[in-house]
């Protein structure tokens, strides 16, 4: 165990370094990315807690806020670190080196798991802390001890998402090594998880409006499987130390048991997971020929479809788009009633904000340079213009988005009964937003490449470029939303949509020009 602190530090630094890029002049540090993660957690917690607290305070059920937000903390922690467990704990590329050192597999496994735990802790703490502050702000019981107890509880509660990611990470790694169509199997499994998350979010959002009246029913739910969260709320708000101790034990014991189980068999697990079988019955048949552009496009498609974490991290918005369209068609009558109540207010700009939000999560180009990684030399020495290589990456993102976007636009426009001009402007704006995001993501990735990541999961999940190319377009989405809130009366629906068109056309043009002018130079600099 003497090696343990050094290993823990090494693995935590490895996790952090995945968020850092090498160039000194443009460094985006791991600490910076952790701050981004913390900021995102604070934002989510702040929004949900504020919305819930008022209603819960009105019915005297404010401790329910702590229950719900601790559940949110666990879910967020789980999703933030899901792929890290697969990549860092079970799929690390330094396994051969590590296992050859005089370190026990148990200590190695434990250090990797705890590195994951430390990363998770950031989101858990920064979800619980704002929730605690808002809870106290609304006069929740418990006094000054609430925040310290919440922080201590966060240390234990954080074991739950770490435990879950460990188990799911193992299943993902197992699936990816077991099935002939491993990418498909892994993608389907992740889509199943995503479905559960979306169902949970939908449930939480739909409960938001009547959470006050539903408080007793929610409490009943938490008396069953959700008991740990109830114990946390009772312990923190009521000062019931016995409940807190029980909660801490409930988090710690299963965690230690599962870690011990994995650690006990760790060497054999990672050996089995890293074993590949190569078939030897291929017979050379007729080979198809294609153009350079076609070859590059097929390569992009095979990388995307063949990398489940890439699909999962950049495909959520694609599912949300038609999902929103179908939901809008189902609730078509309710939408019409709402519009009548608001005096025929058109929601087209708001629908665009929703579409743009979904599109901003489809940041395929934000990782596509980093994912070339050590294979970049293949493109660098290929007799293909750099502009073609970059353009194909942009085109691929647009091709992936287009069918989902058009289907969503059609259903939403139909459901919201937009005017013909709104139909046209909504489609134009949506396409322009997609045309902005694709070159922007690539431009960002060229500035913040992560070519030395130990696996693809780290690039698509945690690299600076992946984060920036997803979250920066959301700033534009937020500005559009604020414009709708504050300027809809002044400008009207068509006026706003026209402003969006002008802004988006300018951005799309800007990033295409930037890519054309700087792309080749930045691409060549990747070798230095």
């Amino acid at each position, binding site marked *: 165990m003497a090696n343990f602190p050094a290993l823990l530090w090494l693995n935590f630094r490895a996790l952090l370094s995945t968020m850092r890029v090498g160039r000194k002049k443009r460094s985006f540090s791991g600490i910076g990315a952790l701050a981004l993660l913390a900021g995102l957690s604070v934002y989510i917690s702040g929004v949900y807690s504020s919305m819930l607290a008022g209603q819960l305070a009105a019915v005297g059920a404010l401790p329910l806020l702590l229950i719900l937000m601790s559940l949110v903390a666990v879910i967020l922690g789980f999703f933030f670190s899901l792929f890290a467990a697969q990549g860092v704990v079970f799929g690390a590329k330094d396994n051969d080196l590590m296992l050859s050192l005089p370190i026990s597999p148990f200590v190695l496994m434990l250090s990797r798991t705890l590195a994951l735990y430390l990363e998770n802790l950031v989101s858990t703490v920064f979800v619980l802390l704002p929730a605690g502050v808002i809870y106290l702000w609304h006069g929740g019981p418990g006094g000054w001890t609430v925040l310290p107890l919440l922080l201590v509880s966060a240390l234990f509660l954080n074991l739950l998402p770490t435990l879950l990611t460990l188990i799911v990470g193992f299943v993902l790694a197992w699936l990816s090594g077991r099935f002939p169509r491993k990418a498909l199997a892994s993608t389907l499994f992740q889509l199943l998880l995503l479905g559960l998350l979306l169902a949970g979010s939908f449930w939480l959002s739909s409960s938001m409006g009547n959470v006050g009246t539903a408080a007793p029913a929610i409490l009943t739910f938490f008396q069953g499987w959700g008991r740990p969260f109830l114990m946390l709320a009772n312990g923190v708000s009521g000062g019931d130390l016995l409940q807190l101790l029980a909660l801490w034990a409930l988090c710690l014991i299963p965690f230690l048991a599962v870690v011990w189980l994995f650690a006990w068999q760790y060497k054999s697990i990672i050996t089995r997971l890293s074993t*590949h079988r190569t078939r030897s019955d291929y017979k*050379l048949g007729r*080979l198809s020929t294609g153009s350079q552009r076609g070859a590059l496009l097929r390569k992009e498609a095979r*990388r995307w479809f063949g990398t489940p974490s890439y699909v999962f991290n950049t495909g959520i918005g694609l599912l949300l788009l038609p999902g929103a369209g179908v939901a809008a068609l189902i609730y078509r009558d309710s939408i019409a009633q709402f519009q009548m109540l608001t005096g025929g207010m058109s929601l087209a700009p708001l629908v665009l904000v929703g579409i743009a939000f979904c599109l901003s999560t489809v940041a395929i180009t934000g990782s596509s340079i980093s994912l070339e990684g050590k294979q970049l030399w293949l493109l660098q020495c290929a007799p293909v213009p750099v502009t073609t290589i970059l353009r194909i990456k942009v085109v691929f993102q647009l091709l992936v988005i287009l069918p989902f976007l058009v289907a969503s636009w059609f259903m939403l426009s139909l459901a919201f009964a937009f005017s013909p001009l709104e139909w046209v402007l909504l489609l134009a704006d949506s396409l322009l937003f997609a045309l902005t995001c694709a070159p922007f993501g690539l431009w960002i990735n060229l500035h913040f490449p992560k070519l030395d990541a130990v696996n693809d999961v780290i690039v698509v999940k945690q690299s600076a470029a992946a984060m920036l190319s997803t979250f920066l377009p959301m700033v534009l989405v937020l500005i559009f939303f604020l414009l709708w809130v504050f300027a809809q009366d002044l400008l009207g629906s068509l006026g706003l949509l026209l402003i969006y068109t002008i802004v988006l056309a300018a951005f799309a043009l800007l990033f295409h020009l930037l890519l054309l002018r700087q792309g080749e130079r930045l691409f060549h600099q990747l070798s*230095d």
Partner: protein
Amino acid sequence: MLKIEHFSKTYPGGNRAVDDLSLHVAPGEIFGFIGHNGAGKTTTLRAVSGVMDFTEGTITIDGHNVRTDALAAKKVTAFLPDNPDLYDFLTGIQFLNFIADLYEISGDARHTLIGKYADAFQLTGSLGSPIGSYSHGMKQKLALISALIRQPKLLILDEPFVGLDPSAAHLLKQFWAELCAAGSSVFFSTHVLEVAEKLCHRVAIIKGGKLIRMGVTSELVGDSTLEDVFLELEGDVHG
């Protein structure tokens, strides 16, 4: 075939990896590039292949300037780095077809060439499997096949024998001889001085980014061995 004139490369941070290097590789020639770790061999090979940009000096391949006529130069070149990472998500045959498409090799030619080289390296049966399932040696062979099917005028290789089994290494030497007989050239770096001494028509020795000796191998070695010459030049021989 290859002309390097006054080539220098300084990395960001001020490290001058190569300093005023000039050398020529004639058609049909196997040219060995020798030097200790960090001498500037890989930097030179990467600049020649178009993988790395540079500002000082001129490099031309078959008359095409690597900087100003890069695509034409790349079209007649095949480069393999010391540890050629390939696309793990593609199968072997998908990768070879991808390369064939990029280099615009006709359907018939790619079928013939892939068959010839894959059979020779005993890799045909595995071409349907994902590259991610290949061993290091299999990846090395696949990378070599992808280079050879281009029938390049200049084959550039960085430490090509690392990871190859003896029979694959023997085959590779045969294919080099075939290429050179057809007028192509091979420009490679190596630490295995015995191989360089036996294979190369000419060798160049680089130290600290500067060319310190170049010539016909037999003349350079004389009655000694290439290893002795190299160590003497490196200043590592005492007494």
